[in-house]
């Protein structure tokens, strides 16, 4: 017996007080509906409806069992919804300069855990709003590096040089134009420092502007990068310096040196939208490839011991969130 179909016939008839209207509501033939109710009455050992009057009425047994029948149907409905939302694609908001190979590893890890992930490249503020409006299931959110789970060194990319050298920390004061020595050729104009959209977030911009001023650089040396491809072209042509991560610079064969001031590096947390029981934890199998994708150094080392526990908890967390 398909208990759910039989309970549906019972509940619909009780609601409508009519076999024909109940059959219409369920979209089945009335004889089928009647047969299901008879079968159910046999199963429960007594009549659910009084058919002796013009209007169908529910018997005492029928009234008593009705809330239980509704409860079973509700739960079955929620079960179907949970199954459906678990099959849906979950969007992950990521910065524009991620390493594609690492993002692909995140997608494969999702598949292994029964979750279909989709990567969405978004500027930092939109990743944050995507979490709050529910359009993103996970996002890499910019935070100050001191409090971040993932730290990514920022540095300056420049045109490739003849001999590759080990990157030495670069300090903003060094970008000040030099005073000319006697007989020295006229200095070339100082190169602008281009800032990508990924770094136009209040938590970074304020600090950077202050550091630039204190290092004695005019504000005009810093400019928004515009499209990343244009900024890279200018940089590789030796006409600009691009503020970016090491892996981004090396992907395009630019020379790169980290900023000496680590307070100016990037910080990321991998976040999920806040649920009814606070902000849920993001599974380790997802944070790890995302850390690699942004080029984090010494990423989330403290979480390594929780790896097994986190992996075991994944289905429970997803069900609670569905």
């Amino acid at each position, binding site marked *: 017996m398909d208990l759910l179909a039989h309970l549906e016939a019972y509940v619909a008839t009780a609601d409508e007080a009519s076999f024909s209207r109940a059959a219409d509501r369920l979209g089945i033939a009335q004889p089928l509906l009647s047969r299901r109710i008879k079968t159910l009455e046999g199963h429960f050992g007594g009549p659910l409806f009084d058919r002796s009057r013009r209007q169908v009425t529910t018997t005492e047994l029928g009234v008593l069992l009705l809330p239980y029948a509704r409860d079973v149907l509700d739960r079955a409905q929620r079960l179907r919804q949970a199954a459906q939302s678990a099959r849906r694609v979950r969007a992950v908001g990521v910065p524009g300069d991620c390493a594609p190979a690492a993002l692909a590893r995140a997608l494969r890890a999702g598949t292994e855990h029964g979750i279909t992930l989709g990567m969405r490249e978004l500027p930092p503020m939109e990743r944050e709003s995507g979490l709050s409006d529910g359009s993103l299931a996970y996002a890499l959110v910019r935070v100050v590096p001191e409090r971040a789970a993932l730290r990514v060194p920022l540095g300056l990319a420049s045109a490739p040089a003849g001999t590759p050298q080990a990157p030495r920390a670069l300090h903003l004061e060094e970008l000040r134009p*030099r005073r000319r020595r*006697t007989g020295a050729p006229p200095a070339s104009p100082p190169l602008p420092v281009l800032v990508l959209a990924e770094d136009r977030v209040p938590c970074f911009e304020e600090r950077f502007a202050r550091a630039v001023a204190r290092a*004695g650089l005019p504000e005009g040396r810093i400019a928004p990068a515009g499209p990343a491809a244009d900024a890279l072209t200018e940089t590789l042509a030796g006409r600009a310096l691009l503020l970016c991560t090491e892996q981004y610079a090396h992907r395009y064969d630019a020379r790169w040196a980290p900023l000496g001031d680590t307070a100016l590096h990037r910080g990321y947390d991998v976040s999920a939208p806040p649920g009814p029981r606070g902000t849920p934890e993001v599974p380790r199998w997802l944070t790890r490839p995302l850390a690699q994708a942004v080029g984090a150094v010494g990423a989330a080392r403290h979480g390594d011991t929780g790896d097994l526990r986190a992996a075991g908890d994944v289905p429970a967390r997803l069900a609670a969130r569905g």
Partner: protein
Amino acid sequence: MSPAETGAAHGRPVCVGDDGALMDVAEAVAADWAALGVRGSFLALNLDTGTRLGFGVDESMPLASVAKVPLALVVLDRIAAGELDAARPVTVDPARSSVGSTGLSAFRHPATVAVGDLLLLMLSVSDNAAADALFDLVQVAEVDARLRAWGCDGIRMRHRMNHMYECAVGAAGNDFSLALELAVRDERAGLATIETLDPARANSGSAAALVGLLRRVWCDEIAVPGATAELRRLMGSQVFTQRLACDLRADSLRWSGKTGTFLHLRHEIGVVEAESGDRVAMAALTRAGRRAALAPDIELAMGAAARDAFEALRG
């Protein structure tokens, strides 16, 4: 001589550098100075990593006003030991005080200043009268002996500040340009008509010894911490910025230094400290081959060397 040193014939200074890149910087600075007709020595040392670059680092040179740094350290050590009161008033009378163009030495009327403020005048504006007022309290021989006891072997103290003026006047009368001409001519001939230009008879020291002194002051490895901290503070108050500091001026950098100028000598020693934590001590001791009271191009070359060295040595 360490393996990292490269020698040279004919008066070209010996360069030192802890790796190839640092050696390149040292040689570039030496070539830059030589092109301006400047002889001398330069040494920069990262106080935390110990890496260094420079040239001619062991050559002894008359210190001029750089000698006020060891004097200040000995006075501060006596104050810290309770043997001298920083608040003790000292009256300086222009009729008897030392010659100079700044501070008490430029005053026309007697002034009473506490010992602690004499130190400030001596280090902030290189006040000769303030320095010699301190030499009245702590004798030259005592300063020299204390340096010896501290193991500062490359630095010798032999006279008060006014002795430089007296020697110049003795050789050239009150004619500055004649004194300068004597100095430059002697430089070419390897003589020292003016006694205080002779490293063997003047207050003198080498770049290596001076940087060593700065290192011990900045790392609290000499005198007592109370004295070294106050010396660091006072050296940070120097108002002259046209030499080593000229291209190291930013809110995120701090320069603490002491210049020294006498006839054709232009010196400075000091420490640059960055907000990032990098600390580099340096000494630049120069002798110009020209008769000019002002030589901004030489001072600019000193500043360029300081910046190049700092950027090469910092982490």
